[in-house]
């Protein structure tokens, strides 16, 4: 009832200051703020922060999730010492680094190249661009699954096409120690080069025409125009794309698990894959929690840089 009265007053007296009206009727801005943000923060605290703190605690214990009745002992930093002293872990991190570095190099070359071509505004450009973008939206695990079929050494189409053009004979991408790391790099590039392409394209389209016109008056050649105009303008976008994909590939799990499951031997055993083995097959929960924390810290550091880059691109 009071509400209605106030409303009537508000509409009858146009000279009431809006600030006053807002404070009186309905919920205050502050109440709305917390009502609106509260649930989101609550869910994130429950599903992200609480588990994170739990992981930190577990990483200092010898807990094993498959033996809930067993006494949990505080082991101090022993898990971390064992981790950092283990040669296997460095091997997995090395495999991860190899994967991240090569996927980024290839995707930048392919993605930037495609973006430069698409930027020439030929007929049907948007149709072909849409086609190219499809792979990056697909489920990585399912992509990994069907690439095992495409990579089949005897009957797969990949081996057949390479053999047809290069005469290599049947090639076993997944079974060979030297080729398996490249098998996952190829699939990842197939999926994600379009991502780099899309961001580079955004960068290219942000360059105003007059810059090139001015360069022409100065008789700059094509290479100079690329080096002094195109590259510096696209670089922030490219960096953003590389950083984001780099973080994602550092965490890579699903596609590679389905494609090679870390094999042959441990040639494609990336950090996340090994973490899953330690945590959910060997059930060394405490030890794997320590491993998880180390990965966290690395990703979080990279993420921090990512957000800074994001804000830079935005401005």
């Amino acid at each position, binding site marked *: 009832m009071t509400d209605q009265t106030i409303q009537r007053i508000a509409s009858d007296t146009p000279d009431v200051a809006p600030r006053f009206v807002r404070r009186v009727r309905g919920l205050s801005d502050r109440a709305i703020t917390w009502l609106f943000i509260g649930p989101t923060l609550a869910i994130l605290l429950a599903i992200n922060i609480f588990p994170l703190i739990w992981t930190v605690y577990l990483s200092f214990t010898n807990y094993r999730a498959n033996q809930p009745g067993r006494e949990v002992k505080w082991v101090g930093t022993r898990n971390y010492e064992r981790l950092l002293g283990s040669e296997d872990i460095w091997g997995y991190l090395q495999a991860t680094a190899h994967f991240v570095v090569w996927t980024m190099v290839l995707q930048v070359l392919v993605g930037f190249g495609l973006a430069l071509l698409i930027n020439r505004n030929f007929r049907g*450009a948007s149709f072909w661009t849409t086609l*190219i973008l499809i792979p990056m939206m697909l489920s990585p695990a399912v992509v990994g699954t069907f690439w095992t079929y495409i990579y089949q050494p005897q009957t797969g189409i990949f081996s057949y096409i390479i053999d047809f053009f290069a005469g290599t004979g049947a090639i076993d991408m997944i079974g060979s120690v030297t080729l398996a790391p490249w098998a996952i790099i190829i699939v990842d590039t197939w999926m994600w080069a379009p991502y780099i392409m899309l961001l580079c394209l955004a960068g290219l389209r942000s360059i105003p025409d007059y810059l090139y016109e001015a360069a022409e008056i100065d008789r700059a050649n094509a290479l100079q125009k690329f080096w002094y105009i195109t590259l510096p303008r696209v670089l922030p976008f490219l960096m953003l794309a590389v950083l984001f994909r780099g973080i994602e590939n550092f965490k890579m799990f699903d596609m590679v698990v389905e494609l090679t499951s870390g094999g042959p031997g441990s040639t494609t055993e990336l950090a996340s894959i090994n973490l899953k083995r330690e945590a959910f097959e060997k059930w060394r929960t405490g030890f794997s929690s320590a491993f998880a924390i180390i990965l966290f810290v690395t990703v979080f550091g990279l993420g921090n840089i990512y957000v800074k880059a994001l804000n830079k691109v935005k401005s």
Partner: protein
Amino acid sequence: MSIAANPGRTGARGRWFAGSAVALYALIAMIPLFWIFATGFKSPPDSIAYPPKVFFDPTLEGYVNLFTSRSRQTDEYIETLGPPKTWYEEIARSRNMVITGPSRFADRYWNSVVIGFGSTFLAVFLGTLAAYAFSRFKVPLKDDLLFFILSTRMMPPIAVAIPIFLMYRELGLSDTKAGMILLYTAVNLSLSVWLLKGFVDEIPREYEEAAVVDGYTRLQAFRKVVLPQMRAGIAATAIFCLIFAWNEYAFALLLTSGQAQTAPPFIPIIIGEGGLDWPAVAAGTTLFLLPVVVFTVLLRNQLLRGITFGAVRK
């Protein structure tokens, strides 16, 4: 003006070259997808033929195998059953198989639908509210909170899965749809808040201010003025969340098994007699990927925004 000045305004020959190169790349990139689509309609022997068969007699055997479980029987036993009643029984009989019931694929697909839509609804609903508050009101530590929200997305899923696994085991949420919906909501909230905040930022404040002056409360102004203008942004955000939940694999693999398992961890284990039944796997893959392909085409102009959390808007 010279013609070769600007990469945006190249001469006809350059344009033709660029067009052909891009088209060639697109066609090569489509081979794996086309191949998996075609394999879904091959018979098992055709799917492992050498050289690989581009032309073949299409059959629905892969789809029949995908949706049914079968058992191998002797000719004598099959003769006692009488003639097959349906076309799919006929296909199974031709391989000396008898259909014993439906497979779990339809179940898993349905789980993906329920969990996908459930988590998308929650993430977009909560995300819309949070995005509005972040965009319009003074929130203490706003930048830190927004960074915190984004950083939850950066966590490696396997690392988060260890405590979630333990937590869900305690709460009885493991292998339940509700548990998965809650989890995917949490993962999608970061994307949802960031994307939607961008969309709210684009709506001029003056509309709401005018509505408030006209006697609306803040909440009414939000509901009747801001929400209708956010419709396109909400739709785009929802599709991104849906695709993420649909594609997610790591959590589904570790936290679900019999009841709430979604399609991605199930598709790799569609195994027939004597190794992988490739046409069935291909059929499942096709049915699983098709909606995403359609959504990608629908969403093509918003993709850039979605994949950069709203930072790059073209």
